[in-house]
């Protein structure tokens, strides 16, 4: 459904961040993107949602297609209209606006009042706490509630693909579990296609069907989530298992070489 073919992204016309990255998001599935800080996960999402321009970045090579259409250089608002929605890292709700106004902004491109109302009800059904706080200023919500608002806001545009960037960031384990459940329910019940970017690999691989591991702007490993869960490299570098006896300084070199999957 969504295909990224061999893209290169350059910032400030000389910093090469993505170096020929390819991935596929299948319709109705949850796809996870894993990787350390600076691996290029967020940049990949922004390339897909068209938000690179505000950061002086651009896709210089390769192409991104969505439903068969080339969207590599399409304007961000047209991608939203086409059904691609990104929930940005750090929630990025509109702090000065009320909860309800935030949701209305989410449905900005939808002009049919009934559809907006029904989507709003859907968002409130998934996140009952938002309904309680509908008239509060969003900046005063707690971190978990803000994340819920961010996801609820994304639902308002009636998207087909939702890209979640680090939804677990800054949340307690209980809340992470809650977000995890809701992501799964949205996928099962609403048939949403989800592209999930996470550093919390345990969470991501628990919900995802398929996963990609990014490093230094490239995909270094991919496979079904259950295979990745048992992959030795992923276990070692992202799930923190089996590396105990190799934590010595003398083995660092080996670790680095190993990590590049050469």
């Amino acid at each position, binding site marked *: 459904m969504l295909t990224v073919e061999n893209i290169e992204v350059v910032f400030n016309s000389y910093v090469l961040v993505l170096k020929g990255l390819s991935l596929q998001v299948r319709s109705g599935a949850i796809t996870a993107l894993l990787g350390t800080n600076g691996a290029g996960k967020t940049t990949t999402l922004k390339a897909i*949602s*068209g*938000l690179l321009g*505000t950061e*002086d970045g651009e896709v210089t090579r390769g192409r991104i297609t969505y439903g068969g259409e080339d969207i590599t250089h399409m*304007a*961000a*608002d047209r991608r*939203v*209209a086409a059904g691609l*929605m*990104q929930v*940005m890292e750090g929630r*990025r*709700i*509109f*702090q*000065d*606006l009320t909860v309800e*106004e935030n949701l*209305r*902004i*989410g449905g*900005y*491109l939808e002009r049919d009042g009934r559809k907006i109302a029904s989507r709003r009800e859907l968002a409130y059904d998934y996140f009952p706490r938002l309904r309680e706080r509908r008239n509060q200023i969003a900046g005063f919500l707690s971190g978990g509630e803000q994340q819920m608002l961010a996801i609820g*806001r994304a639902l308002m*545009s009636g998207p087909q693909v939702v890209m979640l960037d680090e939804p677990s960031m800054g949340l307690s384990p209980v809340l992470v579990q809650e977000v995890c459940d809701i992501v799964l329910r949205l996928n099962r019940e609403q048939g949403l296609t989800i592209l999930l970017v996470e550093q919390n690999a345990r969470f991501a691989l628990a919900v995802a069907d398929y996963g990609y591991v990014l490093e230094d702007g490239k995909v270094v490993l991919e496979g079904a989530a259950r295979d990745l869960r048992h992959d030795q490299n992923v276990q070692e570098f992202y799930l923190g298992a089996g590396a105990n006896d190799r934590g010595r300084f003398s083995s660092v070199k080996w670790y680095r070489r190993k990590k590049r999957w050469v």
Partner: protein
Amino acid sequence: MSWSSLLSLIVNGVVVGSVYSMVALGFVVIYKTTRVINFAQGELLLVGAYVCFALTVSYQLPFWVSFLMTGVFCGTLGYIIERVVLRRVVGDPIVSVIMITLGLSIVLRAIVGAVFGVNSQVIPSPIPDGAIMVGGVPVSYQYLFSMAFSLVAMIAFGAFFRWTRLGLAMRATATDQQAAMAMGIDVGRIFAVSWAIACVVSAVGGVLLATISGVNLGVSHFGLKVFPAVILGGLDSIVGAAVGGVLIGVIENVADGMFKSLLDIDGFRDVAAFALLVVVLMVRPYGLFGQRAIERI
């Protein structure tokens, strides 16, 4: 100084202040959405006033028709200015953008001067002559009309930002541009629309001013008076801009009158607002109503 002369100073101040309010409103709209400090706001007022003047006097159109046409013209002008000039400097350092708007103000003033000359012009008012007495001071219908008109305009804009889809999108853009973009808001269009709105509001202020006391090129200093007004009112709110504008109008008028009658010093009008401003900034750096911005490293 007698009570009645003080009262008439205040009334005059409110009328001039309502024009300040309009210009300040335009300034705040641009600043909030695009973060551009617009030094050409006063020139936009000038353009509005002179276009309306040309339409009513030279082309003999009825006042309301030319008023409407002025609005449309200025809206388009603002839209074009954003598209052609300011779009290209998005993200440049703040000083450069300030210089661009200063350049813009020079160009606009020169164009108005070249087309309309340097003489003061008055738009014949549609409001009949006459006055009502308030506390022993005559207040002309014309004054009442312009105060009421600015009030209605303020309320209309408040409602626009609160309830309409576009107004909401503009507020969202003001809060977080990138997130607004991710919501499918065409941020570039919002920028252009906010310039269009700012131009229209300033033009309305200009037309009101031209019917009350006439305009000449010197009136563009209204654009500078906006700064004390918005600082007093706080940059965050439409209401603040309106209140700040009226406040500045009254303060400078009364202070000017005082200086003239008590100390025999002329020309304090242009300084009063700024002198007050310096005091305010020393005591409360973020204005009377403004919120203190918290900065994190």
